[in-house]
Each structure stands twice: as C-alpha cells, then as structure tokens.
C-alpha cells in the first residue's frame, strides 16, 4: 500500500523540555520523522517548547511552533494551521497525554484532524493500566495479579488480595513517575496518594510484586497490512524493581532459549494487535520468573520511546523514521532498509555484537536523595557501548559514562572496597549506581557466581561473564608486560589505562607495547544483518578482531567530538551544536565524522555525519579513531566539557584541533591564570584568591570580605560551590568538603578558589564568535534570577529587558576584549554580573554554551554553524558577504524571547527546591512573544507551571529581599491576589500599605502554611530563602508546594516577572511560528 494521498499536512507534537524519563531520544525520533515526512512531500507543522532540539530548527518543519505543549496552545495551532492529520506517537508521554486531552475536548472533530499512528482507542487501551490488563486477559496473555483503583480506600481493599509488598502503578505516566513498592499500609497510603496525583486520570493499579524477576523489552513494529516485526530484544541486567530506564540493559536478550524468545515475540505482536496500534512502533515489557520461566507482560507503550531510540542505535534500524512512513500509509516491505539499500524493512535485524546501555545518575547534585534505585526513574542520561561480546561492551560502557571509571575492575580511580565479603554481599542487595562495581568486587573477594546472582538478581550468566573479566584481570596482573595477554585483555574490553594500572606502568607505555605486538583496534560495521548483505552504512564500533572494515581515510575529513552521556549541565544543547557542525561541514565540502556514545541523540544517528563511530570519549578510543580517519581537524569546542578536556591529550599526540587552541582553552579554565589575564586586559573581575589550606581560606575570605563564593578546584561544573556569609560558615564548609572526600582532599595541589560574592547582582550571559580579528556578538541575555543562581537554572531574556544600553555596550566591549585576549577562534560564552551599573566578569568559556541553541532560535542566526565555518578558516567578514551572517546585529523585531529552566523537583520531592550556584536543571523551554510578560507566561506554561491570574499567595521573604518584595506584593495585590504571610513578612508588608492575612509558623497553629498548601488553599508560594540557612520552615513549605503542584517562586526578580506574565494572561494570543518571527526580524 503506497503513501496516502488523502492527507497533505501533518502536525507533529514534540516532547517538550528534557526531564527525567523523557530526554533527547524524542528529538532524535522527532527529527527523523519530520525529515522523512517532508521528503515525502507532506507539509509538516511542529510544536515543541524545547529550543535546544534539532527538530525545532526552522529549516526542518514547514511551520515550527516553539510554544507550550498544552491542549490550549495546540488547539490554537490546529485552528491556525488546519492540519489534516496529527501524529501523536513521537513526542513521548507528553504528546500522548495532550492528544488525549484534545480528543476529549472535541478539537479533532471540530477541525477534522485525523490521528495517524495510534488512535485514541489504542492509546487508551495501552495507557489505562486497567483496560490494558483486561485486553491482555482476553487474548490469554498473563499479567501480574492486580486491581485498579481510584482511591486510597479501594487500594487498601485491593492489597488484601495481592498482599504486601504491593506494587503501585499509576496510568498515563512516564519514567515510573508515582510508582513504588509498598511494604506496609503507611507506605501504601503515601505511594497511592502520590500516584493518584501523578496519573492524569487519577487511576492506579495495585499489583502483586514480581520484584527480582528478569525484565525484558521487545521493540515491535506493525504496518497497516498487519505485517509485524520485532526490531530488537533488550534484557535488563537489573531485575524487576529497577526501572528499565535506570537499569543496565543488554541487546539482544542473552538468557532466553529460542522457544522462550519466540513465545515472547508472539505475545508482543499479539499485544500490539489487540491494543490496536495500527501502524508504527511500540515497546512491550515482560517479566520472567527465572525459576520457572513463567512470563507476564508488564506494560506496553504505543509510541516511540527511550527504548526504541536505544533499539534503533543498537540495530541500525531507524524505528522512528519507519514509524512515520508507516503512519502515512506505506507498508514495511515497501520501504527499503537504508543500510543495505537492496533489502526491505520488513525483516528483523540480526546482531553480531552486543550492546550495553548504562544509565548515568547525578545523585551528587541532590544531597537529600539516597542513591538507591527503584521503580521511579532517576537517571539523567545514558551511555551505550557496542562490543563483540558482553564483557567488552560492558567495560566500554562503563568508561563511556565519564564518571571517572575506566572499566569494571583494575581501575586506578576506584575506591578500595571496605568491609568483609558478608557486608559487601548485604550492600549488593540494594540497587544503586555503584552496584555493578561492588558485584565485581565481591567476585574478586571470592564470592561465587551464585552468591552474587542471588543477592543482586542479576542473571548468573551475566555474573559469570563478569567473573571472566575478573579472572582476566588477575591473569594480566601476574603476567606483567607480557604481550600475549594484551590481545585477550583488549578483547575483554580492558582500556589501556586498566592494563597500565595492573602493570604499574603508564597508559602510553601499554599503548606502545600494544602497537609493537600488533594488537590494534579494528572497526566493525553496524549493518542490521550480521554481514549477510553488503552494507553501505557508515556506522562503526571499535573492537579487537582480525579484520578492520573502516574505509581508508579521505583527505577532507573533520572529526566532531560529541558530548557523551547527558548529565545535568551538559545535555542536548551540546548535541545540537555538534549536529550543526556536521551539517555545516558537509555543506562546506568536508566529510564530517562523529564520535559519541550517547544513544539518545541526533548526533548518533548514522544519517547525521559521513561516518559515525559509536565509541567512548576517552583519549585512547578517540586517538584510535583519529588514527583511522586522519582528519584535517578535530572539533572539540562544541560538545561541552567532555571533548574540551580531551583537547590536551589530543594536541599532545599531534592532532590538529580546530579553532581556539588547547592552550587558550586551558588559560580560560584556570581561574588563577584567567584572573591575571583579566587584570592585564583591565576587565573587572570580582576580587578573588586561592587557598591551599583551611587557615589560608579564612584569611583570603576576610581579605576579600564576606559573603564569598567558594569552589573546590578539583570538581568541575559548579560542584561543591557554596556562598558563605561568615567565618563560621566557612569552617563548616571546609569541614564538609573533607568529609565528602573522605579526608583525601589535597588542597595544596587542588586549592580552594574564593571569589567575592556579588550580592543582588544581575547576571548576564553572552554568546559570541571570534575569528581572530572580528567578534560577532550572538546575543546578550539578561537573567531573571540574580547572580548566585547558576546560569543554567536561571531564566534568561533576550533582548535584556532592564539593562541600561550603556551597560549592554560595555558588556559587548568587554566580550570583544576577552575574545581577543583569549585568542578565541570559534565560540565564546561569558557570564557577567552587573551590580550598581558596574559590570564584572564571572567566567569565560571558549566553547559552545548551553544558550547557543536558544540564541540561535531567538535571533535566527545559527551560531554553531557559523562558528564551525570560522574554525575551518572563514572570516566573519566573508560569512557576512556570503549572506550567512546579518550585516547588522539581529534585532528581534519587537519580540522578546525567554528561556526558562526546568528542574526535577517533582521527581525528587525530598530535595529542597532552593536555587543556588550548583546547576540542577535538566532541561529548558522557550517562550517568544511581543512582550516580556507574554513570553514568560508561555515559558512558564511550557515548563509545566500553572499559575492562576488571581487567588491566594503565600509570601515569605528574607530580610535582604524585603524592600524589593513590597513592589512585588503590590503588583500581586493589584492583580487581585489575597496575600498570606507569617509574622515577619506580614508586618513588613502591612507597614507598607498592603492588606495581609497573618498565618502561623509551620507546626505552630491552625493556620499552618504547610497545611494550607495541603488543603489546596494556597495557589502560589513566593519564598525567598536566606543564604545558606535555607532550611527549617522555608524548606518544608517549598517541599509541600512541590508535592501538591503549587507553583513556588524563590526569587523576587522571578516573582516580579511572574506578576508581569500574569498581567499578560496566558500569552496564548501571541502563538506564532518561528518562521514568522524570523521573517519579521529580517524585514
């Protein structure tokens, strides 16, 4: 059946901001789909609030709406664009849920929009856990025993049947949100209460626990002729009870016999048919009792997912792209397999390698959390590795994570195991990010495979494979510098660093021994067919075999180094920049080659670059790709800190680095040297000093004057930063650092950096490009939250709404001076603080920043592409002459664009939502509108905050904020808000002419703010914490707000902008496509 001709335009809904459980895999899927639909002649309308995505690039869709993904906004877009069809299966749970809401409200009927891919009935059948179970029962597929309930009372009834521990699973959720295992009634009550809240339809399932069973996933595709194929099977190393997103997973499944696998396959396909997924991909999850083989279906997702992205990268089969084609009428056998070109997509990929995915966690950023894994997802990113065997892929995956580990064992950076084997085995029962290493430790200490398997729930097959790694390490250790062991070790995935550790020599010496012995990395192709057919795919992974399949190097190759697994502070924005570089390089006649290990991204689509190497981003792995590809240049400044830190080893090995030199990068990174440069350039910086012992720290701080900002130099990315008000706090802080590093802090070599903290200053971000002689200012962004709140957690506005033009001018001049001073060639990001009209430099990063995509979308100038040209030798003047850069700096034609950060408080309710110099946002959204108020209103809605235009506000201000707070309170009162406050704030506001209702302190009376929040009597919380003493009342109020979905603002500047946004209403009257904004701007 060929392409449908009765539809011309299709609305695609993206997944919005990156949050835990829904990350950039949906940009990858959406981008593929939009591209293929357009190539097929459809008019594609896209809505996605996330500016950091490739899919929202203005060239990709015909009309791109960077607007909130809410039923109201999407309805307006439908009214304006009149699409014939809507494809709801590419934007994760967000798109499905909005689609259901729109269907309910009749919008599709009104405008004659057809749902393609999955209809309302199929979505409901899969997502409503109660209905799903009924349907499975009707076709004879087993599920866990369960009852679905809509109240706590009913849940208590249900548990008498299924017993404790009971699994609680809300409907229509993502990333295991609101799920949990209840061991007793108290737990059941609290989990069910939260679960009912999380489920948009207020329904949860109370289910028999199958904790410890093996967990599997199958990725299934079906077309409208009812052909169905399984693209990939995935086996979770961590058993049931750890969310698949938080589990180490392996593809293909390793421990199923053919009979079991085929039964599972049959059930997965039957499940798709019964649920009624007409076309496209779905993910079906199974649990298998290892003792008996009894199998149940856990759930199915009728859409592309994190697992489908992983499956696509693991097999080379582009699920989202094919799903989009199936949705518009093609059948699987009509679509050629890209990779062979000559065989159809109606087949099941055969793998001749093993893929391991390992989640990455950022628990260090959330001290209130226990690093214990459960059914609710907590990971912020993932790395994937491909090896010929499981041990090889596992070790590659572990070093891809960039958590400092080189592999499973034999690791110079591993902490020594403490305690007895018995203690270790007891610890192993608790799932955590470290468990895989502890399991290896236990094996090393002599635990048997069965013992380790029993406590962890890992299948003994995997444990035995880990034991093989342990045994190889032991053999290698006793065969010092014996090259015969090199090949074995390398084939087990050992990095040179691990072997070096075992042999107590340098990693470079191991590399030298290796090349002398001829043990060289070979590259194999990911070809969907285990070499059965000739493949044209340029998709490779490194391993140690006889034959190397990578082609002979060309002479115009440029390598772009990606950013590795997502983590807080280094996410999709950097992948966006890398993808732009490859696009621009190809346009400029180069052959772009991508090296990355993040399966979620667009950069690791084999379509993105001329060749893709799915490899860890370590010096050893990257240098081998360089040796293979012989590039004319390597681009390190677009992938964030990961490639930047590789620039030094690369340069040392004689690799040509594009743009800004590693020396200049190092100068900007070294705060002492950078301070000296600022002095030399007469660029003002807050007074600063370096302390190499605790006593010195006190002296430096007193010399500078409190408050000061302290950061240890041994951790990057703002980790361990603290604002300190006085000597006592300083001592506490240094003490806590010693504790956190187990007393191993070495201040003499890794000193403390102490800066004067600029209080109540306005922070400003600048993105610029320098070609060595000229500087192009991409954008000057004013932050909403004051300096002291990490730039990544702060909203920012372009053009600056409150800055004096003279200040902006000064900022631009300082930017130019620093760009020249640092000898930047390419991108430069600088953060400034403006206090009392004076401009100070906080830091300069000679690389792409988090704001590059936002600025590019706001101004229509693709900074990363321009920077790529500049790095490859074009001058800004030439680019301007070629029409790639505007002649005058881009004005936004009366528009304001705001980027708002999205924070994971809902996922981590135990964590206090105070903002500080540590970044904790997982993602961002953008609002663009004629006024600041309207833009912010949309950004807030896009970030999921629903603030009513009037109601009851609870205000609690710290002393410093009180003067500013009065104006804010007046504005809210003018809007019709009733104001509640506790004693101190109330008195202050009342004295300034406001009508305030007194409430009690927390726990001290009937008018307890926490209670009021719980009872739904407060609509908005404004609570500005005071310095580091952000504990006590404030914290319990903020946590209550988080739990009950009450918007909570923690800065006065944020509050002021909020008041402005409330005046603008929802801002939805300003819904417009990005293309129309850009057309206005260039008029």
């Amino acid at each position, binding site marked *: 059946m060929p392409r449908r001709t009765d539809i011309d335009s299709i609305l695609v809904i993206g997944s919005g901001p990156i949050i835990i459980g829904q990350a950039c895999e949906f940009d990858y899927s959406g981008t593929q789909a939009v591209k293929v639909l357009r190539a097929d002649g459809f008019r594609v309308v896209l809505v996605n609030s996330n500016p950091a995505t490739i899919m929202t690039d203005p060239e990709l869709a015909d009309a791109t709406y960077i607007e909130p993904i809410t039923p109201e906004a999407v309805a307006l877009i439908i009214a304006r664009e009149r699409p014939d069809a809507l494809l709801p299966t590419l934007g994760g749970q967000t798109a499905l849920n909005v689609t259901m809401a729109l269907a309910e409200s009749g919008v599709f009927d009104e405008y004659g929009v057809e749902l393609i891919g999955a209809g309302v009935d199929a979505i409901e059948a899969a997502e409503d856990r109660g209905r799903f179970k009924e349907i499975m029962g009707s076709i004879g597929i087993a599920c866990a025993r369960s009852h679905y309930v809509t109240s706590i009372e009913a849940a208590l009834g249900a548990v008498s049947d299924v017993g404790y521990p009971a699994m609680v699973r809300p409907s229509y959720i993502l990333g295991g949100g609101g799920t949990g295992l209840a061991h007793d009634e108290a737990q059941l009550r609290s989990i069910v209460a939260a679960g009912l809240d999380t489920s948009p339809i207020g329904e949860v399932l109370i289910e028999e626990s199958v904790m410890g069973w093996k967990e599997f996933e199958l990725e299934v595709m079906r077309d409208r*002729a*009812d*052909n169905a*194929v399984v693209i990939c099977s995935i086996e979770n190393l961590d058993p049931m009870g750890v969310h698949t997103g938080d589990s180490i997973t392996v593809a*293909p499944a*390793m*421990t*199923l*016999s*053919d*009979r*079991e*696998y*085929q039964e599972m*396959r*049959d059930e997965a396909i039957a499940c798709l048919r019964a649920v009624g997924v007409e076309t496209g991909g779905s993910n079906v999850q199974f649990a298998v009792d*290892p*003792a*008996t*083989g009894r199998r149940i279906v856990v759930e199915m997702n009728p859409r592309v997912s994190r697992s489908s992205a992983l499956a696509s990268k693991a097999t080379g089969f582009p699920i989202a792209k094919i799903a989009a084609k199936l949705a518009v009428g093609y*059948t*699987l*056998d009509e679509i*050629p397999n890209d990779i062979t*070109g*000559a*065989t*159809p997509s*109606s*087949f*099941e*990929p*055969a*793998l*001749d*390698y*093993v893929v391991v995915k390992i989640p990455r966690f950022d628990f260090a950023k959330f001290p209130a959390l226990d690093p214990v894994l459960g059914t609710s997802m907590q990971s912020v990113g993932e790395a994937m590795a491909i090896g*010929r*065997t*499981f041990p090889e892929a596992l070790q590659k995956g572990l070093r891809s994570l960039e958590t400092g580990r080189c592999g499973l064992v034999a690791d110079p950076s591993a902490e020594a195991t403490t305690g007895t084997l018995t203690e270790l085995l007891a610890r192993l029962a608790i799932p955590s990010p470290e468990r895989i290493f502890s399991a290896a430790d236990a094996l090393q200490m002599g635990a048997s*495979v069965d013992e380790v398997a029993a406590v962890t729930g890992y*299948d*003994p*097959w995997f444990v*035995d494979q880990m034991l*093989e790694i342990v045994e190889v390490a032991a053999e290698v250790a006793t065969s010092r510098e014996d090259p015969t062991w090199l090949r074995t070790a390398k084939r087990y995935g050992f990095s040179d660093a691990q072997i070096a550790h075992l042999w107590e020599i340098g990693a470079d010496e191991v590399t030298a021994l290796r090349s002398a012995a001829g043990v060289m990395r070979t590259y*194999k192709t990911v070809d969907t*067919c*285990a*070499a*059965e*057919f*000739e493949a044209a795919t340029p998709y490779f992974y490194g391993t140690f*075999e*006889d*034959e190397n*399949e990578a082609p002979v190097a060309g002479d115009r190759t440029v390598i772009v180094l990606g950013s590795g697994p997502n983590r807080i502070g280094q996410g999709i924005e950097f992948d966006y920049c890398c993808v732009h570089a490859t696009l621009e390089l190809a346009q400029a006649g180069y052959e772009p080659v991508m090296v990355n290990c993040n399966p979620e991204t667009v950069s690791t689509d084999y379509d993105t670059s001329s060749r893709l190497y799915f490899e860890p981003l370590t010096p050893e792995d990257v240098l081998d790709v360089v040796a293979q590809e012989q590039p004319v240049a390597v681009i390190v400044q677009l992938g964030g800190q990961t490639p930047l830190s590789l620039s030094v080893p690369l340069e040392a090995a004689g690799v040509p680095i594009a743009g800004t030199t590693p020396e200049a990068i190092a100068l900007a990174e070294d705060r002492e040297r950078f301070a000296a440069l600022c002095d030399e350039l007469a660029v003002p910086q807050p007074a600063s000093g370096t302390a190499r012992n605790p006593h010195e720290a006190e002296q430096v701080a007193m010399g500078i004057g409190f408050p000061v900002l302290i950061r240890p130099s041994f951790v990057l990315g703002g980790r361990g930063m603290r604002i300190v008000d006085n000597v006592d706090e300083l001592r506490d802080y240094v003490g806590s650092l010693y504790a956190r590093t187990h007393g191993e802090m070495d201040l003499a070599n890794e000193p403390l950096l102490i800066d004067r903290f600029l209080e109540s200053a306005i922070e400003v971000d600048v993105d610029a490009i320098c070609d060595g002689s000229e500087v192009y200012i991409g954008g000057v962004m004013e932050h909403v939250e004051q300096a002291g709140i990490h730039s990544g957690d702060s909203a920012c506005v372009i053009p600056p709404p409150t800055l004096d033009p003279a200040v902006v001018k000064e900022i631009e001049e300082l930017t130019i001076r620093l760009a020249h001073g640092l000898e930047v060639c390419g991108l430069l990001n600088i953060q400034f603080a403006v206090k009392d009209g004076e401009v100070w430099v906080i830091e300069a990063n000679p690389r792409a920043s988090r704001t590059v995509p936002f600025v590019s979308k706001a101004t229509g100038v693709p900074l990363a592409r321009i920077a790529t040209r500049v790095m490859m030798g074009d001058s800004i003047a030439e680019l301007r002459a070629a029409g790639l850069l505007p002649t005058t700096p881009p004005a936004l034609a009366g528009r304001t664009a705001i980027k708002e950060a999205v924070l994971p408080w809902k996922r981590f309710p135990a964590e206090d939502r105070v903002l500080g110099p540590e970044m904790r946002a997982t993602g961002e959204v953008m609002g663009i509108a004629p006024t600041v108020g309207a833009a912010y209103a949309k950004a807030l809605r896009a970030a999921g905050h629903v603030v009513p235009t009037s109601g009851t506000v609870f205000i609690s201000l710290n002393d410093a904020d009180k003067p500013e707070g009065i104006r804010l309170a007046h504005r809210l009162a003018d809007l019709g808000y009733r104001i509640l406050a506790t004693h101190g704030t109330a008195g202050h506001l009342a004295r300034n002419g406001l009508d305030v209702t007194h409430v009690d302190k927390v726990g001290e009376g009937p008018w307890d703010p926490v209670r009021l929040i719980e009872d739904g009597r407060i609509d908005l919380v404004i609570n500005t914490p005071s310095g580091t003493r952000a504990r006590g009342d404030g914290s319990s109020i903020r946590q209550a707000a988080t739990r009950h979905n009450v918007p909570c603002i923690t800065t006065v500047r944020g509050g002021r902008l909020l008041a402005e946004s409330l005046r603008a209403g929802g801002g939805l009257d300003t819904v417009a496509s990005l293309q129309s904004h850009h057309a206005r701007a260039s008029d």
Partner: protein
Amino acid sequence: MSGALVLADGTVLTGERIGARGTAVGEVVFTTAMTGYQEILTDPSYAGQIITMTAPHIGNYGVNDADDQAGAPACRGLIVRALSRRASNHRAEGELDDYLERHDIVALTGLDTRRLTRHLRTAGAMAGAIGSDRDVRVLRELAAAHGGMSGRDLATEVTCDGSTRVPAAGRPRAHVVAYDLGMKRDIVSQLSARGMEVTVVPAGTPAAAVLAERPDGVFLSNGPGDPEPVHATIAAVRDLLGRVPVFGICLGHQILGLALGARTYKLPFGHHGGNHPVRRLSDGRVEITSQNHGFAVDLWTLTREDPPVPPVGEMPGPRLLPTAAVGRFGRIRPTHQNLNDGTLEGLACDDVAAFSVQYHPEAAPGPNDALGLFDEFVSAVT
C-alpha cells in the same frame, strides 16, 4: 588450546578449540539466527556442514533434551565467537561444551566470525577444515580435497532406517506419510499436534509402499544438501502426485520442484537464519521465516522466457519470478517470494494437490509466523 579453520581457498582463521578433539571437514556456512543453537546443531539439514554462528555468545542458556531436532547432530563442526562456559536458564540440563564433546562435534570459539561471514558472503560457501592450529597443513589439504555439496545425496545418509508411526495428539483426523529426508522433530510434532497420525518412512521408499499405507497425504521433509541426486525420492514423488495431496518443506520443496520438472541451483551462500522476509503472493502478507538451505528451485526452467537480471542496489520485485509455469503435472504457481533476494520460497500446483515452501514453518528455531501452513496441509488432507 589453539585451533584453526582453514578454508579451501587457503584462508586461515584462528581461535580456541572446544568440543570434541580431532579434525572436521565440511562446507562452511553461516547462520544469522540469534537464538536456537541447539536446534540448529541438531537440524539434519546441516549434514556435512560446519556451522558458523554470527551471534557472538553461544551456549548461554545451555542445552536440553526437548530442543533436539534429531537424535544427534548431523553437522560436522561449529564455529562461534564466544562459547559460554556457564549456562543459565531454568530449562537448561547441561552445558553446550559437554554436549559438543558428547556428540563428537569439533568446534572453535574466539574466532573473528564476522570476518569469516563476510568472506563467505563474497567468496561463496566453501569447504573448510577445523582442528588444531599445529595441523594447518593437514587442514589445508583436507579442505582442498573436499568435493563440495553439489551432486551428493546427503538425504539418503541422514534418513531413518525403517518406518515408524507417530500417533496423533488427541483424536486422529488423518493419516499422512512423511518422507524423512533429514526431518526435524518439530515438524512431526506440528503434524501430530494437528491430529495427524504420521508414518515416517526412509528417503528411498517407493511410491507403491507409501500408497499401501493408504495415506490421506504425503509430506516431504527438510533435509541436507543438493536435491538433484536424491533420485529415488524424486521418482517416488512423481508417482504420488495426482494420487494423494503432497506438502513439502525445504529439501522437500526442492524435491517437489524437481518432480514437477523444474531445475534447482546452488545459491552463493544459502539462506540460514531466522529473519528472512517472505511475501505470500496471494495477499501480499509478509512472514518472517526460519531458513536453512543452500539450493533453490528455478521455475523459469519451466517457462519459455529468460529469467530477468536481478536489479543491483534495489529491492527485488515480483518480476523476478514467473507468474506461472507449466510442468509435468500442469500449471505451477509461485506462492511465496524471498524479499531479500527475490528467490522462490513456495509453489503450488493448480492441477494436482501439491504445494511446498522453501522455508521452515515449524520454526524451531525461529519465528512462528508461518505455522498456518500446517493447517493448510490439514485442510488439504481432511
């Protein structure tokens, strides 16, 4: 202990020896199936061959009696990338390594199986010998001396000695005679599960002996190697056609094709795996099929037309098969086509009750998509 594979063209690959000691020589083929190594090892269709598994980890879930497709493996050897030393599965009754040793199968692990596969894909399936790497010279001679598969009647080597009767599971609905040309056990199970009483007979059984059983249908099983030398069976089938409904699978399909007067030919490296898409020409539906064969039926030999040249770099289309052919027993329709290379995957006769498929509807190992073919056979005989 180091071992080596030496191919007839002189290529040497090295690995570790597992399984039985000694050397083995045979045609080296690869299968892309990712599960089902035990079914593959015991599939008599692999008689005379050395099997390369492209899936790297083999042995993971051990071995058990239930998955055997024959009393013992008929293949000559096994080559894998990584043999599992520890099986883990509730169905496991033993380790693969022990099983290989017990059944005297010489095997290698640790080999660059992908290199080997690519080599066989481009150079074609060829003879090879495996053994100790100290015997490379001997292995080379063995490989060079191996005559290849064409022209050898392997089916007669692996067939049963005498006839046996397998009762129907449940109420008997029909009685069929099955020619054992190297039949997999799961085929008999599928027939029996559908209420068929199955009389299994040796490859050389003449038609008269079969008809004496008064069967409702005759089944032609899968089996190894080249169909052309299996003269006795081909002759018997000629005598049976038109008298009793005939259904063939794999080698059985080729035998039927030869009996109808078509020719067969050797594929460059065969079809061995569990992921081959096959289109049912009657309604366009695609089944994912289990395959294991090195030869194929050429229906063009029964037409006056020249076969079209397969397109390069394009998906093969229906025009690679004739719409119909006329053979000894009247009109023949192609019913199924392989979508990877356009080859014939099934045929049916219009004038006599006979049909066959090149692939394995019984799966074991592989997908169950095509099980319905057994039901079609049941309707044809009841």
